[in-house]
Protein backbone atom coordinates (compact mmCIF):
# COMPACT_ATOMS: atom_id res chain seq x y z
CA UNK A 1 0.00 0.00 0.00
CA UNK A 2 1.38 3.34 -0.95
CA UNK A 3 0.27 6.12 1.33
CA UNK A 4 2.12 9.01 -0.19
CA UNK A 5 -0.20 10.51 -2.86
CA UNK A 6 2.61 12.10 -4.83
CA UNK A 7 4.38 8.79 -5.03
CA UNK A 8 1.21 7.06 -6.07
CA UNK A 9 0.61 9.46 -8.95
CA UNK A 10 4.16 9.02 -10.10
CA UNK A 11 3.77 5.29 -10.07
CA UNK A 12 0.49 5.48 -11.96
CA UNK A 13 2.07 7.68 -14.62
CA UNK A 14 4.96 5.27 -14.94
CA UNK A 15 2.63 2.34 -15.32
CA UNK A 16 0.63 4.11 -18.00
CA UNK A 17 3.77 5.13 -19.80
CA UNK A 18 4.98 1.55 -19.74
CA UNK A 19 1.76 0.55 -21.45
CA UNK A 20 2.12 3.29 -23.99
CA UNK A 21 -1.02 5.16 -22.92
CA UNK A 22 -1.38 8.83 -22.19
CA UNK A 23 -2.27 9.61 -18.58
CA UNK A 24 -5.37 11.55 -19.64
CA UNK A 25 -7.56 8.50 -20.08
CA UNK A 26 -10.28 8.17 -22.67
CA UNK A 27 -13.48 10.07 -22.32
CA UNK A 28 -16.72 8.83 -23.79
CA UNK A 29 -16.78 11.63 -26.36
CA UNK A 30 -13.21 10.99 -27.47
CA UNK A 31 -13.94 7.32 -27.84
CA UNK A 32 -17.00 8.10 -29.90
CA UNK A 33 -15.09 10.54 -32.11
CA UNK A 34 -12.43 7.92 -32.73
CA UNK A 35 -15.10 5.42 -33.74
CA UNK A 36 -16.73 8.01 -35.97
CA UNK A 37 -13.45 8.74 -37.73
CA UNK A 38 -12.99 5.05 -38.45
CA UNK A 39 -16.41 4.95 -40.17
CA UNK A 40 -15.50 5.62 -43.81
CA UNK A 41 -19.03 6.43 -44.99
CA UNK A 42 -19.43 8.97 -42.20
CA UNK A 43 -16.10 10.66 -42.90
CA UNK A 44 -16.81 10.95 -46.62
CA UNK A 45 -20.27 12.27 -45.78
CA UNK A 46 -18.86 14.92 -43.46
CA UNK A 47 -16.56 16.09 -46.27
CA UNK A 48 -19.42 16.13 -48.78
CA UNK A 49 -21.69 17.99 -46.39
CA UNK A 50 -18.96 20.52 -45.63
CA UNK A 51 -18.46 21.12 -49.35
CA UNK A 52 -22.20 21.51 -49.89
CA UNK A 53 -22.51 23.99 -47.03
CA UNK A 54 -19.48 25.90 -48.27
CA UNK A 55 -20.88 26.00 -51.80
CA UNK A 56 -24.28 27.14 -50.57
CA UNK A 57 -22.91 29.85 -48.31
CA UNK A 58 -20.01 31.37 -50.29
CA UNK A 59 -20.60 29.85 -53.72
CA UNK A 60 -23.07 32.50 -54.94
CA UNK A 61 -20.36 35.21 -54.61
CA UNK A 62 -18.05 33.43 -57.03
CA UNK A 63 -20.35 32.76 -59.95
CA UNK A 64 -21.08 35.28 -62.66
CA UNK A 65 -24.90 35.27 -62.37
CA UNK A 66 -27.36 35.74 -59.54
CA UNK A 67 -30.40 33.66 -58.76
CA UNK A 68 -33.20 36.07 -59.67
CA UNK A 69 -32.14 38.16 -62.67
CA UNK A 70 -32.86 36.69 -66.09
CA UNK A 71 -30.10 36.55 -68.69
CA UNK A 72 -31.86 37.93 -71.76
CA UNK A 73 -29.37 36.24 -74.07
CA UNK A 74 -29.89 32.73 -72.72
CA UNK A 75 -33.32 31.24 -72.17
CA UNK A 76 -33.57 27.49 -71.71
CA UNK A 77 -29.85 27.23 -72.36
CA UNK A 78 -28.30 23.81 -71.77
CA UNK A 79 -25.24 23.59 -69.50
CA UNK A 80 -22.15 25.05 -71.16
CA UNK A 81 -18.75 26.38 -70.16
CA UNK A 82 -18.66 29.29 -72.61
CA UNK A 83 -21.36 31.63 -71.35
CA UNK A 84 -20.88 30.92 -67.64
CA UNK A 85 -24.15 29.02 -67.20
CA UNK A 86 -22.44 25.87 -65.95
CA UNK A 87 -25.76 24.22 -65.06
CA UNK A 88 -27.76 25.85 -67.87
CA UNK A 89 -30.69 28.24 -67.42
CA UNK A 90 -34.39 27.84 -66.71
CA UNK A 91 -37.29 29.00 -68.97
CA UNK A 92 -37.01 32.48 -67.46
CA UNK A 93 -33.33 32.72 -68.30
CA UNK A 94 -32.17 32.46 -64.70
CA UNK A 95 -28.87 30.72 -64.02
CA UNK A 96 -29.53 27.24 -62.64
CA UNK A 97 -26.25 26.95 -60.74
CA UNK A 98 -27.05 30.11 -58.81
CA UNK A 99 -30.59 28.90 -58.16
CA UNK A 100 -29.46 25.46 -57.03
CA UNK A 101 -26.92 26.96 -54.64
CA UNK A 102 -29.53 29.34 -53.33
CA UNK A 103 -32.06 26.52 -52.98
CA UNK A 104 -29.54 24.43 -51.06
CA UNK A 105 -29.01 27.39 -48.76
CA UNK A 106 -32.74 27.74 -48.11
CA UNK A 107 -33.13 24.01 -47.53
CA UNK A 108 -30.21 23.95 -45.10
CA UNK A 109 -31.48 27.02 -43.28
CA UNK A 110 -34.95 25.56 -42.90
CA UNK A 111 -33.46 22.28 -41.70
CA UNK A 112 -31.21 23.80 -39.09
CA UNK A 113 -33.73 26.29 -37.71
CA UNK A 114 -36.53 23.73 -37.65
CA UNK A 115 -34.25 21.19 -35.97
CA UNK A 116 -33.33 23.79 -33.37
CA UNK A 117 -36.99 24.52 -32.69
CA UNK A 118 -37.79 20.83 -32.41
CA UNK A 119 -34.81 20.19 -30.13
CA UNK A 120 -35.71 23.04 -27.79
CA UNK A 121 -39.37 22.06 -27.52
CA UNK A 122 -38.69 18.33 -27.39
CA UNK A 123 -35.95 18.52 -24.76
CA UNK A 124 -37.85 20.86 -22.44
CA UNK A 125 -41.11 18.96 -22.85
CA UNK A 126 -39.55 15.55 -22.37
CA UNK A 127 -37.37 16.60 -19.44
CA UNK A 128 -40.27 18.27 -17.61
CA UNK A 129 -42.56 15.35 -18.24
CA UNK A 130 -40.02 12.79 -17.15
CA UNK A 131 -38.74 14.71 -14.14
CA UNK A 132 -42.07 15.54 -12.55
CA UNK A 133 -43.64 12.20 -13.41
CA UNK A 134 -47.00 11.13 -12.05
CA UNK A 135 -50.17 12.60 -13.41
CA UNK A 136 -48.45 15.47 -15.25
CA UNK A 137 -46.28 12.92 -17.06
CA UNK A 138 -49.21 10.80 -18.14
CA UNK A 139 -51.17 13.83 -19.38
CA UNK A 140 -48.18 15.21 -21.28
CA UNK A 141 -47.35 11.88 -22.84
CA UNK A 142 -50.98 11.22 -23.73
CA UNK A 143 -50.88 14.51 -25.64
CA UNK A 144 -47.81 13.30 -27.52
CA UNK A 145 -49.62 10.06 -28.34
CA UNK A 146 -52.54 12.07 -29.73
CA UNK A 147 -50.23 14.19 -31.86
CA UNK A 148 -48.53 11.05 -33.12
CA UNK A 149 -51.80 9.68 -34.39
CA UNK A 150 -52.44 12.73 -36.54
CA UNK A 151 -51.00 13.26 -40.02
CA UNK A 152 -48.90 16.28 -39.16
CA UNK A 153 -48.05 17.20 -42.72
CA UNK A 154 -51.73 18.02 -43.21
CA UNK A 155 -51.49 20.42 -40.29
CA UNK A 156 -48.50 22.08 -41.84
CA UNK A 157 -50.42 22.44 -45.10
CA UNK A 158 -53.44 23.77 -43.20
CA UNK A 159 -51.23 26.34 -41.47
CA UNK A 160 -49.57 27.35 -44.73
CA UNK A 161 -52.97 27.76 -46.39
CA UNK A 162 -54.35 29.89 -43.62
CA UNK A 163 -51.40 32.08 -42.73
CA UNK A 164 -49.82 32.39 -46.12
CA UNK A 165 -46.59 31.01 -47.47
CA UNK A 166 -43.96 32.47 -45.30
CA UNK A 167 -40.48 31.03 -44.74
CA UNK A 168 -40.43 31.78 -41.02
CA UNK A 169 -43.78 30.10 -40.53
CA UNK A 170 -42.46 27.13 -42.46
CA UNK A 171 -39.49 26.89 -40.08
CA UNK A 172 -41.66 27.13 -37.03
CA UNK A 173 -44.45 24.87 -38.26
CA UNK A 174 -42.14 22.00 -39.23
CA UNK A 175 -40.06 22.38 -36.08
CA UNK A 176 -43.08 22.63 -33.84
CA UNK A 177 -44.49 19.40 -35.23
CA UNK A 178 -41.26 17.42 -35.41
CA UNK A 179 -40.46 17.41 -31.66
CA UNK A 180 -42.60 14.44 -30.64
CA UNK A 181 -40.02 11.67 -30.96
CA UNK A 182 -37.41 13.88 -29.34
CA UNK A 183 -39.73 14.42 -26.37
CA UNK A 184 -40.21 10.68 -25.98
CA UNK A 185 -36.49 9.93 -26.10
CA UNK A 186 -35.65 12.70 -23.65
CA UNK A 187 -38.39 11.61 -21.26
CA UNK A 188 -37.07 8.06 -21.23
CA UNK A 189 -33.55 9.26 -20.47
CA UNK A 190 -34.79 11.65 -17.80
CA UNK A 191 -36.67 8.88 -16.04
CA UNK A 192 -33.45 6.96 -15.56
CA UNK A 193 -31.37 10.05 -14.75
CA UNK A 194 -33.59 11.47 -12.06
CA UNK A 195 -32.86 8.72 -9.58
CA UNK A 196 -29.11 9.13 -9.87
CA UNK A 197 -27.08 10.42 -6.93
CA UNK A 198 -26.13 13.78 -8.39
CA UNK A 199 -29.76 14.70 -8.92
CA UNK A 200 -30.60 13.56 -5.42
CA UNK A 201 -27.71 15.67 -4.11
CA UNK A 202 -28.98 18.69 -6.00
CA UNK A 203 -32.46 18.15 -4.62
CA UNK A 204 -31.10 17.71 -1.10
CA UNK A 205 -29.20 20.99 -1.39
CA UNK A 206 -32.53 22.70 -2.01
CA UNK A 207 -32.39 23.53 -5.71
CA UNK A 208 -35.61 24.27 -7.51
CA UNK A 209 -36.89 21.59 -9.94
CA UNK A 210 -36.49 23.80 -13.02
CA UNK A 211 -32.90 24.53 -12.07
CA UNK A 212 -32.23 20.83 -11.59
CA UNK A 213 -33.66 20.13 -15.02
CA UNK A 214 -31.64 22.79 -16.80
CA UNK A 215 -28.41 22.44 -14.80
CA UNK A 216 -28.21 18.73 -14.10
CA UNK A 217 -30.53 16.72 -16.32
CA UNK A 218 -30.26 18.42 -19.71
CA UNK A 219 -26.43 18.53 -19.82
CA UNK A 220 -26.45 14.77 -19.38
CA UNK A 221 -28.76 14.31 -22.33
CA UNK A 222 -26.41 15.78 -24.92
CA UNK A 223 -25.41 12.45 -26.49
CA UNK A 224 -28.84 11.07 -27.42
CA UNK A 225 -30.15 14.54 -28.30
CA UNK A 226 -27.29 15.20 -30.74
CA UNK A 227 -27.75 11.81 -32.37
CA UNK A 228 -31.46 12.22 -32.79
CA UNK A 229 -31.13 15.81 -33.99
CA UNK A 230 -28.67 14.62 -36.66
CA UNK A 231 -31.26 12.10 -37.81
CA UNK A 232 -33.98 14.77 -37.80
CA UNK A 233 -32.17 17.11 -40.18
CA UNK A 234 -32.53 14.98 -43.35
CA UNK A 235 -36.14 14.27 -42.45
CA UNK A 236 -36.88 17.99 -42.25
CA UNK A 237 -35.08 18.66 -45.52
CA UNK A 238 -37.21 15.97 -47.15
CA UNK A 239 -40.37 17.45 -45.60
CA UNK A 240 -39.48 20.95 -46.72
CA UNK A 241 -38.84 19.84 -50.28
CA UNK A 242 -42.06 17.85 -50.18
CA UNK A 243 -44.01 20.95 -49.17
CA UNK A 244 -42.17 23.14 -51.66
CA UNK A 245 -42.79 20.56 -54.34
CA UNK A 246 -46.52 20.77 -53.70
CA UNK A 247 -46.34 24.55 -53.82
CA UNK A 248 -46.62 25.32 -50.10
CA UNK A 249 -43.02 26.25 -49.54
CA UNK A 250 -41.08 29.44 -50.17
CA UNK A 251 -42.33 31.84 -52.80
CA UNK A 252 -40.75 33.21 -55.96
CA UNK A 253 -38.16 34.47 -56.61
CA UNK A 254 -36.87 32.66 -53.54
CA UNK A 255 -36.40 29.01 -54.20
CA UNK A 256 -35.57 25.74 -52.54
CA UNK A 257 -34.48 22.35 -53.80
CA UNK A 258 -38.04 21.02 -53.70
CA UNK A 259 -39.35 23.94 -55.78
CA UNK A 260 -36.54 23.50 -58.29
CA UNK A 261 -37.30 19.79 -58.62
CA UNK A 262 -40.98 20.58 -59.16
CA UNK A 263 -40.05 23.03 -61.92
CA UNK A 264 -37.61 20.53 -63.38
CA UNK A 265 -40.21 17.77 -63.42
CA UNK A 266 -42.50 19.87 -65.59
CA UNK A 267 -39.80 20.20 -68.23
CA UNK A 268 -37.88 16.99 -67.77
CA UNK A 269 -38.19 15.87 -71.38
CA UNK A 270 -37.04 19.03 -73.10
CA UNK A 271 -34.68 20.36 -70.42
CA UNK A 272 -33.47 17.40 -68.34
CA UNK A 273 -30.76 19.47 -66.65
CA UNK A 274 -33.45 21.37 -64.75
CA UNK A 275 -34.36 18.15 -62.94
CA UNK A 276 -30.94 16.51 -62.81
CA UNK A 277 -28.91 19.16 -60.97
CA UNK A 278 -31.31 19.94 -58.11
CA UNK A 279 -31.96 16.21 -57.74
CA UNK A 280 -28.26 15.45 -57.42
CA UNK A 281 -27.88 18.16 -54.81
CA UNK A 282 -30.89 17.01 -52.80
CA UNK A 283 -29.89 13.36 -52.90
CA UNK A 284 -26.27 13.97 -51.92
CA UNK A 285 -27.44 16.27 -49.13
CA UNK A 286 -29.86 13.68 -47.76
CA UNK A 287 -27.42 10.83 -48.23
CA UNK A 288 -24.54 12.54 -46.41
CA UNK A 289 -26.77 13.68 -43.55
CA UNK A 290 -28.16 10.18 -43.21
CA UNK A 291 -24.71 8.60 -43.07
CA UNK A 292 -23.52 11.17 -40.53
CA UNK A 293 -26.55 10.51 -38.35
CA UNK A 294 -26.08 6.75 -38.54
CA UNK A 295 -22.37 7.13 -37.91
CA UNK A 296 -23.00 9.27 -34.82
CA UNK A 297 -25.49 6.75 -33.50
CA UNK A 298 -23.09 3.87 -34.00
CA UNK A 299 -20.26 5.85 -32.45
CA UNK A 300 -22.12 6.94 -29.33
CA UNK A 301 -24.13 3.79 -28.88
CA UNK A 302 -21.93 0.83 -29.80
CA UNK A 303 -24.56 -1.66 -28.62
CA UNK A 304 -25.43 -2.84 -32.12
CA UNK A 305 -21.92 -3.69 -33.16
Amino acid at each position, binding site marked *: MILNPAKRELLAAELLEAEGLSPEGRSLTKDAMRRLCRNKAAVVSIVVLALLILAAVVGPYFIPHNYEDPDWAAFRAPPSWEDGHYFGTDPNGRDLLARVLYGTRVSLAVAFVATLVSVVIGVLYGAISGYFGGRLDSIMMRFVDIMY*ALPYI*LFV*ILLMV*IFGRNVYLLFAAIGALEWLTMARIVRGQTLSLKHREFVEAARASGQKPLKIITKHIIPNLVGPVVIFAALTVPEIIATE*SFLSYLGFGVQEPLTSLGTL*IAEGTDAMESMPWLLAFPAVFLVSL*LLSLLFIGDGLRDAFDPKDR
Partner: protein
Amino acid sequence: MLSYAFRRLLSTIPVLWIAVTACFFVLRLAPGGPFDGERSLPPAILQNLAAHYNLDKPLIQQYLYYVGDLLRGDLGPSFSSEDFNVAQQIMIGLPYTFTLGMTAFALAIIIGVAVGCLGALYQNKMPDYVLGAMILVGVVFPNFLIAPILQLVFGIQLAWLPVGGWGDGSLKYLVLPVVVMALPHAGRISRITRGSMIEVMNQNFIRTAKAKGIGPRLTVMRHALKPAMMPVVSYLGPAASYLLTGSLVVESIFGLPGIGRYFINAALNRDYGMVLGTVIFYMVLIVFLNLIVDIAYAWLDPKVRNR
Protein backbone atom coordinates in the same frame (compact mmCIF):
# COMPACT_ATOMS: atom_id res chain seq x y z
CA MET B 1 -60.05 -9.14 -26.11
CA LEU B 2 -63.44 -7.59 -26.81
CA SER B 3 -63.18 -5.34 -23.78
CA TYR B 4 -59.72 -4.23 -24.91
CA ALA B 5 -61.09 -3.34 -28.32
CA PHE B 6 -63.94 -1.44 -26.69
CA ARG B 7 -61.63 0.49 -24.35
CA ARG B 8 -59.39 1.35 -27.27
CA LEU B 9 -62.39 2.54 -29.29
CA LEU B 10 -63.49 4.79 -26.43
CA SER B 11 -60.04 6.32 -26.18
CA THR B 12 -60.20 7.52 -29.78
CA ILE B 13 -63.12 9.81 -28.98
CA PRO B 14 -61.12 12.48 -27.11
CA VAL B 15 -58.41 12.28 -29.77
CA LEU B 16 -60.86 13.01 -32.54
CA TRP B 17 -62.66 15.68 -30.53
CA ILE B 18 -59.43 17.56 -29.79
CA ALA B 19 -58.35 17.30 -33.42
CA VAL B 20 -61.66 18.57 -34.79
CA THR B 21 -61.79 21.42 -32.28
CA ALA B 22 -58.21 22.46 -33.02
CA CYS B 23 -58.87 22.43 -36.77
CA PHE B 24 -62.08 24.42 -36.43
CA PHE B 25 -60.56 27.20 -34.37
CA VAL B 26 -57.36 27.38 -36.41
CA LEU B 27 -59.55 27.86 -39.45
CA ARG B 28 -61.57 30.61 -37.80
CA LEU B 29 -58.37 32.42 -36.87
CA ALA B 30 -57.62 32.72 -40.55
CA PRO B 31 -57.41 36.26 -41.84
CA GLY B 32 -60.15 36.97 -44.34
CA GLY B 33 -63.34 35.07 -44.95
CA PRO B 34 -64.26 32.61 -47.64
CA PHE B 35 -66.10 35.22 -49.68
CA ASP B 36 -63.28 37.77 -49.97
CA GLY B 37 -63.00 37.26 -53.70
CA GLU B 38 -61.20 39.47 -56.17
CA ARG B 39 -64.48 41.23 -56.91
CA SER B 40 -65.96 42.56 -53.70
CA LEU B 41 -69.60 41.73 -53.15
CA PRO B 42 -72.21 44.20 -51.96
CA PRO B 43 -72.61 44.12 -48.16
CA ALA B 44 -76.24 42.97 -48.35
CA ILE B 45 -75.29 39.90 -50.36
CA LEU B 46 -72.37 39.20 -48.05
CA GLN B 47 -74.75 39.32 -45.12
CA ASN B 48 -77.11 36.88 -46.79
CA LEU B 49 -74.24 34.54 -47.58
CA ALA B 50 -72.99 34.76 -44.01
CA ALA B 51 -76.48 34.02 -42.70
CA HIS B 52 -76.82 31.08 -45.05
CA TYR B 53 -73.63 29.50 -43.81
CA ASN B 54 -74.28 30.47 -40.16
CA LEU B 55 -71.22 32.72 -40.23
CA ASP B 56 -73.10 35.57 -38.49
CA LYS B 57 -73.72 33.56 -35.32
CA PRO B 58 -71.40 33.67 -32.30
CA LEU B 59 -68.30 31.51 -32.66
CA ILE B 60 -69.35 28.97 -30.06
CA GLN B 61 -72.69 28.47 -31.78
CA GLN B 62 -70.95 27.99 -35.14
CA TYR B 63 -68.73 25.41 -33.50
CA LEU B 64 -71.70 23.50 -32.12
CA TYR B 65 -73.40 23.61 -35.52
CA TYR B 66 -70.25 22.30 -37.15
CA VAL B 67 -69.78 19.45 -34.71
CA GLY B 68 -73.47 18.59 -35.03
CA ASP B 69 -73.21 18.43 -38.81
CA LEU B 70 -70.03 16.41 -38.50
CA LEU B 71 -71.75 13.78 -36.36
CA ARG B 72 -74.28 13.37 -39.16
CA GLY B 73 -71.47 12.94 -41.67
CA ASP B 74 -71.85 16.40 -43.19
CA LEU B 75 -68.48 18.04 -43.66
CA GLY B 76 -69.97 21.36 -44.68
CA PRO B 77 -70.04 23.26 -47.95
CA SER B 78 -67.13 23.62 -50.31
CA PHE B 79 -66.46 27.27 -51.02
CA SER B 80 -65.22 26.74 -54.55
CA SER B 81 -67.45 24.03 -55.99
CA GLU B 82 -71.12 24.91 -56.43
CA ASP B 83 -72.39 21.46 -57.27
CA PHE B 84 -70.83 19.28 -54.61
CA ASN B 85 -70.33 19.73 -50.90
CA VAL B 86 -67.16 18.54 -49.19
CA ALA B 87 -68.45 15.10 -48.28
CA GLN B 88 -69.62 14.46 -51.83
CA GLN B 89 -66.26 15.52 -53.29
CA ILE B 90 -64.47 13.21 -50.88
CA MET B 91 -66.77 10.35 -51.83
CA ILE B 92 -65.98 10.94 -55.50
CA GLY B 93 -62.24 10.74 -54.86
CA LEU B 94 -62.28 8.02 -52.24
CA PRO B 95 -62.44 4.89 -54.44
CA TYR B 96 -59.32 5.92 -56.36
CA THR B 97 -57.34 6.81 -53.27
CA PHE B 98 -58.52 3.67 -51.51
CA THR B 99 -57.54 1.34 -54.37
CA LEU B 100 -54.18 3.03 -54.71
CA GLY B 101 -53.44 3.11 -50.99
CA MET B 102 -54.49 -0.44 -50.24
CA THR B 103 -52.56 -1.89 -53.18
CA ALA B 104 -49.47 0.06 -52.20
CA PHE B 105 -49.89 -0.98 -48.56
CA ALA B 106 -50.16 -4.67 -49.49
CA LEU B 107 -47.21 -4.45 -51.87
CA ALA B 108 -45.06 -2.67 -49.28
CA ILE B 109 -45.82 -5.33 -46.66
CA ILE B 110 -45.19 -8.27 -49.01
CA ILE B 111 -41.93 -6.91 -50.43
CA GLY B 112 -40.76 -5.54 -47.09
CA VAL B 113 -41.35 -8.72 -45.12
CA ALA B 114 -39.90 -10.97 -47.82
CA VAL B 115 -36.75 -8.92 -48.35
CA GLY B 116 -36.35 -8.33 -44.61
CA CYS B 117 -36.54 -12.06 -43.83
CA LEU B 118 -34.08 -12.89 -46.60
CA GLY B 119 -31.74 -10.19 -45.34
CA ALA B 120 -31.88 -11.59 -41.83
CA LEU B 121 -31.42 -15.22 -42.87
CA TYR B 122 -28.57 -14.45 -45.26
CA GLN B 123 -26.77 -11.83 -43.21
CA ASN B 124 -23.99 -10.05 -45.12
CA LYS B 125 -24.70 -11.98 -48.30
CA MET B 126 -26.35 -10.99 -51.54
CA PRO B 127 -29.96 -10.52 -50.31
CA ASP B 128 -28.70 -8.40 -47.44
CA TYR B 129 -26.99 -6.00 -49.83
CA VAL B 130 -30.11 -5.77 -51.99
CA LEU B 131 -31.96 -4.89 -48.82
CA GLY B 132 -29.45 -2.19 -47.92
CA ALA B 133 -29.66 -0.63 -51.36
CA MET B 134 -33.45 -0.71 -51.28
CA ILE B 135 -33.66 1.00 -47.92
CA LEU B 136 -31.24 3.64 -49.07
CA VAL B 137 -33.13 4.36 -52.28
CA GLY B 138 -36.42 4.51 -50.41
CA VAL B 139 -35.13 6.87 -47.78
CA VAL B 140 -32.92 9.14 -49.85
CA PHE B 141 -34.97 9.50 -53.01
CA PRO B 142 -38.18 11.31 -52.10
CA ASN B 143 -41.24 10.04 -53.96
CA PHE B 144 -41.49 13.23 -56.01
CA LEU B 145 -38.06 12.38 -57.38
CA ILE B 146 -38.59 8.67 -58.01
CA ALA B 147 -41.90 9.30 -59.77
CA PRO B 148 -40.62 11.47 -62.64
CA ILE B 149 -37.60 9.20 -63.12
CA LEU B 150 -39.84 6.14 -63.44
CA GLN B 151 -42.19 8.07 -65.71
CA LEU B 152 -39.29 9.03 -67.92
CA VAL B 153 -37.87 5.51 -68.10
CA PHE B 154 -40.94 3.29 -68.24
CA GLY B 155 -43.48 5.74 -69.59
CA ILE B 156 -41.57 7.67 -72.23
CA GLN B 157 -38.32 5.91 -73.12
CA LEU B 158 -39.53 2.31 -73.00
CA ALA B 159 -43.23 3.16 -73.44
CA TRP B 160 -44.25 0.08 -71.48
CA LEU B 161 -46.63 1.80 -69.12
CA PRO B 162 -48.86 4.87 -69.29
CA VAL B 163 -47.24 8.01 -67.88
CA GLY B 164 -50.24 8.95 -65.81
CA GLY B 165 -53.99 9.12 -65.51
CA TRP B 166 -56.47 6.54 -64.39
CA GLY B 167 -57.68 5.37 -67.80
CA ASP B 168 -60.10 2.51 -67.44
CA GLY B 169 -58.61 1.64 -64.07
CA SER B 170 -56.78 -1.41 -65.38
CA LEU B 171 -53.62 -2.68 -63.78
CA LYS B 172 -51.14 -0.96 -66.09
CA TYR B 173 -52.32 2.44 -64.90
CA LEU B 174 -51.77 1.40 -61.30
CA VAL B 175 -48.25 -0.01 -61.58
CA LEU B 176 -46.14 3.15 -61.48
CA PRO B 177 -48.08 5.06 -58.79
CA VAL B 178 -48.31 1.99 -56.57
CA VAL B 179 -44.59 1.26 -56.89
CA VAL B 180 -43.71 4.87 -56.09
CA MET B 181 -45.94 4.82 -53.03
CA ALA B 182 -44.84 1.40 -51.80
CA LEU B 183 -41.08 1.66 -52.27
CA PRO B 184 -40.09 3.80 -49.25
CA HIS B 185 -42.33 1.79 -46.94
CA ALA B 186 -41.09 -1.51 -48.30
CA GLY B 187 -37.63 -0.28 -47.35
CA ARG B 188 -38.61 0.69 -43.83
CA ILE B 189 -40.62 -2.48 -43.25
CA SER B 190 -37.76 -4.63 -44.46
CA ARG B 191 -35.36 -2.88 -42.11
CA ILE B 192 -37.67 -3.50 -39.17
CA THR B 193 -38.27 -7.11 -40.22
CA ARG B 194 -34.57 -7.76 -40.59
CA GLY B 195 -33.76 -6.43 -37.13
CA SER B 196 -36.47 -8.32 -35.31
CA MET B 197 -35.91 -11.50 -37.31
CA ILE B 198 -32.23 -11.56 -36.35
CA GLU B 199 -33.22 -11.09 -32.73
CA VAL B 200 -35.80 -13.86 -32.84
CA MET B 201 -33.48 -16.29 -34.63
CA ASN B 202 -31.00 -16.06 -31.74
CA GLN B 203 -33.55 -17.15 -29.14
CA ASN B 204 -33.75 -20.45 -27.36
CA PHE B 205 -36.98 -21.71 -28.85
CA ILE B 206 -35.55 -21.36 -32.34
CA ARG B 207 -32.54 -23.37 -31.29
CA THR B 208 -34.93 -26.01 -29.99
CA ALA B 209 -36.79 -25.99 -33.30
CA LYS B 210 -33.54 -26.36 -35.19
CA ALA B 211 -32.46 -29.16 -32.87
CA LYS B 212 -35.71 -30.97 -33.54
CA GLY B 213 -34.58 -31.15 -37.13
CA ILE B 214 -37.65 -29.67 -38.80
CA GLY B 215 -35.52 -27.87 -41.34
CA PRO B 216 -34.88 -24.18 -41.86
CA ARG B 217 -38.06 -23.44 -43.83
CA LEU B 218 -40.47 -24.76 -41.21
CA THR B 219 -38.43 -23.17 -38.43
CA VAL B 220 -38.89 -19.78 -39.99
CA MET B 221 -42.46 -20.19 -41.14
CA ARG B 222 -43.90 -21.83 -38.07
CA HIS B 223 -41.81 -20.47 -35.21
CA ALA B 224 -39.90 -17.34 -36.11
CA LEU B 225 -42.26 -15.40 -38.34
CA LYS B 226 -45.04 -14.58 -35.89
CA PRO B 227 -42.89 -13.16 -33.08
CA ALA B 228 -40.74 -11.36 -35.64
CA MET B 229 -43.80 -9.62 -37.06
CA MET B 230 -44.65 -7.75 -33.85
CA PRO B 231 -42.58 -4.61 -34.53
CA VAL B 232 -43.76 -4.63 -38.14
CA VAL B 233 -47.40 -4.58 -37.05
CA SER B 234 -46.76 -1.67 -34.75
CA TYR B 235 -45.18 0.20 -37.65
CA LEU B 236 -48.24 -0.25 -39.84
CA GLY B 237 -50.23 2.46 -38.04
CA PRO B 238 -47.73 5.24 -38.73
CA ALA B 239 -47.13 3.71 -42.17
CA ALA B 240 -50.78 4.20 -43.07
CA SER B 241 -50.46 7.87 -42.20
CA TYR B 242 -47.24 8.27 -44.22
CA LEU B 243 -48.86 6.46 -47.11
CA LEU B 244 -51.71 8.93 -47.06
CA THR B 245 -49.39 11.95 -47.23
CA GLY B 246 -47.49 10.15 -49.97
CA SER B 247 -50.71 9.82 -51.91
CA LEU B 248 -50.96 13.63 -52.04
CA VAL B 249 -47.84 13.81 -54.17
CA VAL B 250 -48.41 10.64 -56.15
CA GLU B 251 -51.92 11.62 -57.15
CA SER B 252 -50.75 15.06 -58.25
CA ILE B 253 -47.81 13.70 -60.26
CA PHE B 254 -49.72 10.95 -61.98
CA GLY B 255 -52.90 12.97 -62.42
CA LEU B 256 -55.10 10.53 -60.56
CA PRO B 257 -58.56 11.76 -59.52
CA GLY B 258 -58.23 10.82 -55.83
CA ILE B 259 -58.81 12.84 -52.66
CA GLY B 260 -55.20 13.94 -52.51
CA ARG B 261 -55.46 15.94 -55.67
CA TYR B 262 -58.69 17.61 -54.54
CA PHE B 263 -56.97 18.45 -51.30
CA ILE B 264 -53.92 20.01 -52.93
CA ASN B 265 -56.06 22.01 -55.34
CA ALA B 266 -58.34 23.17 -52.53
CA ALA B 267 -55.36 24.17 -50.44
CA LEU B 268 -53.78 26.11 -53.30
CA ASN B 269 -57.12 27.85 -54.00
CA ARG B 270 -57.69 28.53 -50.30
CA ASP B 271 -60.95 26.64 -50.23
CA TYR B 272 -61.06 26.53 -46.43
CA GLY B 273 -64.15 24.35 -46.21
CA MET B 274 -62.69 21.67 -48.43
CA VAL B 275 -59.30 21.75 -46.70
CA LEU B 276 -60.82 21.46 -43.25
CA GLY B 277 -63.20 18.72 -44.31
CA THR B 278 -60.45 16.70 -45.94
CA VAL B 279 -58.10 17.07 -42.99
CA ILE B 280 -60.82 15.89 -40.63
CA PHE B 281 -61.65 13.00 -42.93
CA TYR B 282 -58.00 11.98 -43.12
CA MET B 283 -57.65 12.19 -39.38
CA VAL B 284 -60.67 10.01 -38.73
CA LEU B 285 -59.30 7.53 -41.24
CA ILE B 286 -55.87 7.45 -39.65
CA VAL B 287 -57.17 7.23 -36.11
CA PHE B 288 -59.28 4.26 -37.11
CA LEU B 289 -56.43 2.60 -38.98
CA ASN B 290 -54.34 2.99 -35.86
CA LEU B 291 -57.17 1.48 -33.87
CA ILE B 292 -57.26 -1.57 -36.15
CA VAL B 293 -53.50 -1.93 -35.91
CA ASP B 294 -53.62 -1.73 -32.11
CA ILE B 295 -56.31 -4.36 -31.93
CA ALA B 296 -54.35 -6.61 -34.28
CA TYR B 297 -51.34 -6.09 -32.07
CA ALA B 298 -53.28 -7.06 -28.97
CA TRP B 299 -54.52 -10.14 -30.74
CA LEU B 300 -50.94 -11.14 -31.58
CA ASP B 301 -49.52 -10.30 -28.17
CA PRO B 302 -51.74 -11.13 -25.17
CA LYS B 303 -49.51 -9.08 -22.86
CA VAL B 304 -50.79 -5.84 -24.37
CA ARG B 305 -54.46 -6.59 -23.72
CA ASN B 306 -54.24 -6.56 -19.96
CA ARG B 307 -52.30 -3.34 -19.63
